[in-house]
């Protein structure tokens, strides 16, 4: 009896919880994650078999030797290091072997997988999906607008998608076809009378959006526009039952209440719950990442780490205003190419864009410069600001003045930080700012050179001051109080 109770009450050391999705050019695989001591683990051999070919295996009591595409890997139980060829690479958590299964912590994907596979690996730390090989995932941004009798959801995808809809348990499911999808945010919550949440889910290997209505009995009418790049979905309160109002013969939408597929006429009574407007989006870009470390200080500090720390603090400072949502162009130590960063920003329909850098700004340190875009050629050519279709490479022309104003607003706040040299706003031909359809500035802190230590500008207090100044500058630019 006592033994039985003990078995029942004994805390589980390993709990199977979620899945990890591997997206490859022609296939995808779902591998269950295991949680051990609050760390997430993946089974090693299934992972290697998904992304490549395991040649041979030598397993002893405490060690495992695997030849992966002719590269030897050697692991030891409860050891945080893994031998890859002749190098030893450290993991955040030790290797485990419960139930004779070799498990590696999830950071194996970021630290070791890129070393042993020839394919491009794109993985954002903290997510549960990885893209291996020539896979270009689709991203999307979400916008919610009030209409006369309901709410319109606009989902803008970075590429064409196909959508199949379904309804289950009072929620609407939008299956996004076979395209690999990388969400900018896992879920979006709204204070709206018709929609409370949009959640992205691909835990079963099938990317989908799950819309949770704010109330029961609402109708849902999704349609694809622009060849599959935009999804428009109207969520409306159904009209009161009336025998004179038959349902349309063909309705390309899904209604939660069968037989009430027709949207109500305009002028419907106002919803009971007052809807809040969707929060504007600010995009923060940490330069470099992954195999591109950017600059390096004498003490070994890397630009990619410094700017990621700064962006994280800026994010918190902006979120503290409760006026914006924040999207990051990179999360974790990965190299996101410039085109992808632009896509993330433009898809999110940002109201402001900040790109963070650290570089050589002379011997004065700490020092901050704020840049807006200046084209490489003084003569800008045709004025495209009134053109119907504007090439992405020229989109900066529509944003030069607001970008200058944003740079001025932020620089003024930097100038108020004691002990910091804040130069007047500058203009430079920065590639990252060229195709951003939003007021866009780059912030460079320094001086980061191999001749000096990073200490003057890498300390947390300084970064916090910079973060506060960026948030205050954004507020000043947007017309709020500082």
């Amino acid at each position, binding site marked *: 009896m006592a033994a039985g109770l003990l078995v029942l009450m004994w805390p589980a050391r390993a709990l199977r919880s979620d899945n990890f999705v591997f997206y490859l050019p022609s296939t995808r695989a779902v591998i269950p994650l295991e949680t051990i001591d609050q760390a997430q683990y993946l089974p090693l051999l299934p992972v290697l078999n998904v992304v490549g070919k395991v040649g041979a295996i030598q397993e002893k009591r405490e060690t495992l030797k695997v030849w992966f595409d002719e590269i030897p890997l050697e692991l030891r139980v409860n050891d945080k290091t893994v031998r890859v060829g002749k190098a030893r690479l450290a993991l955040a958590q030790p290797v485990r072997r419960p139930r004779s299964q070799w498990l590696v912590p999830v950071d194996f994907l970021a630290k070791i997988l890129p070393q042993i596979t020839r394919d491009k690996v794109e993985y954002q730390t903290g997510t549960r999906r990885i893209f291996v090989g020539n896979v270009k995932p689709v991203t999307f941004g979400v916008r919610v607008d009030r209409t006369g009798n309901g709410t319109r959801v606009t989902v803008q995808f970075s590429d064409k998608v196909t959508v199949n809809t379904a309804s289950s348990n009072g929620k609407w499911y939008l299956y996004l076809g076979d395209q690999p999808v990388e969400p900018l945010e896992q879920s979006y919550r709204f204070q709206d009378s018709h929609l409370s949440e949009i959640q992205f889910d691909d835990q079963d290997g099938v990317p989908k959006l799950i819309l949770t209505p704010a109330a029961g009995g609402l109708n849902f009418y999704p349609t694809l526009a622009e060849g599959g790049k935009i999804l428009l979905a109207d969520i409306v309160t159904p009209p009161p039952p009336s025998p004179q109002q038959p349902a349309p013969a063909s309705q390309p939408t899904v209604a939660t209440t069968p037989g009430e597929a027709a949207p109500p006429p305009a002028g419907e009574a106002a919803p009971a719950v007052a809807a809040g407007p969707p929060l504007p989006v600010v995009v923060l870009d940490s330069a470099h990442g992954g195999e591109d470390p950017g600059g390096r200080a004498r003490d070994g500090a890397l630009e990619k780490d410094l700017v990621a720390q700064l962006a994280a603090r800026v994010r918190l400072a902006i979120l503290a205003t409760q006026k914006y949502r924040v999207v990051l162009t990179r999360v974790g130590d990965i190299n996101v190419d410039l085109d992808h960063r632009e896509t993330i920003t433009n898809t999110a329909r940002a109201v402001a864009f900040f790109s963070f850098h650290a570089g*050589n700004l002379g011997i004065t340190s700490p020092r901050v410069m704020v840049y807006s875009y200046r084209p490489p050629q003084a003569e800008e050519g045709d004025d495209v600001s009134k053109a119907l279709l504007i090439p992405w490479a020229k989109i900066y022309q529509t944003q030069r003045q607001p970008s200058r104003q944003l740079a001025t607003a932020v620089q003024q706040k930097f100038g108020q930080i004691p002990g910091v040299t804040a130069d007047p706003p500058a203009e430079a031909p920065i*590639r990252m700012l060229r195709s951003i359809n939003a007021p866009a500035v780059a912030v460079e802190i320094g001086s980061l050179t191999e001749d000096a230590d990073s200490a003057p500008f890498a300390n947390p207090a300084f970064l916090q001051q910079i973060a506060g100044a960026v948030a205050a500058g954004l507020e000043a630019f947007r017309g709020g109080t500082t």
Partner: protein
Amino acid sequence: MTTRAKILSVILFFVLMGSAFYLRVLTRRIFFRPPPEHTEEVARTRLSEAALQSATTPVQTATLYFPSFENGNLTEEQRSISWAASETDRIRQIVLALIEGSHQGSSRVLPPAASLRAVFLAADGTAYLDFSGQTRSDLRPGIASESLAVYAIVNSLAANIPAVKRVQILLDGQRVDTLGGHTDLTEPFAPGPARLAAGP
């Protein structure tokens, strides 16, 4: 064996030995040539070589621009150069002088390891400078440093060679997005401001 045959054998032996030695030296030169050391001395040597090729022309003063990171601007520097006859050679002379570095303590434009693979000057005034990929790996990182380096090259060329209106920088023969992740190299550069920051 006759005396004549002995003498011929000895001569043939030395000829064969000499041929073998020459073949060995030739093989080493072709297959085992050590990579050139990219030092300031090498840069100066290349500059001198370029200048010597045009020894018949008089020495003239060229205006070069070098970055000053402390001030966020370009500083002017005069340099005596014996101009080559052709404009593409003059472009090469300017770039080599920039690689050689400032004589007045300004910062570097390009690392000593930078090498110019080819130069073209198009009819529309666009000069194409094809640098080796090594140029990128030894660059000083940063927005200011990269932008000032590019403007130092473009402004120096435009100031001394009127035919140069724009400059397109290539790496290993390819158009690239940036040198080190910052400056937009997707299109040619016109001469730019000597100072990045606005105001006095």
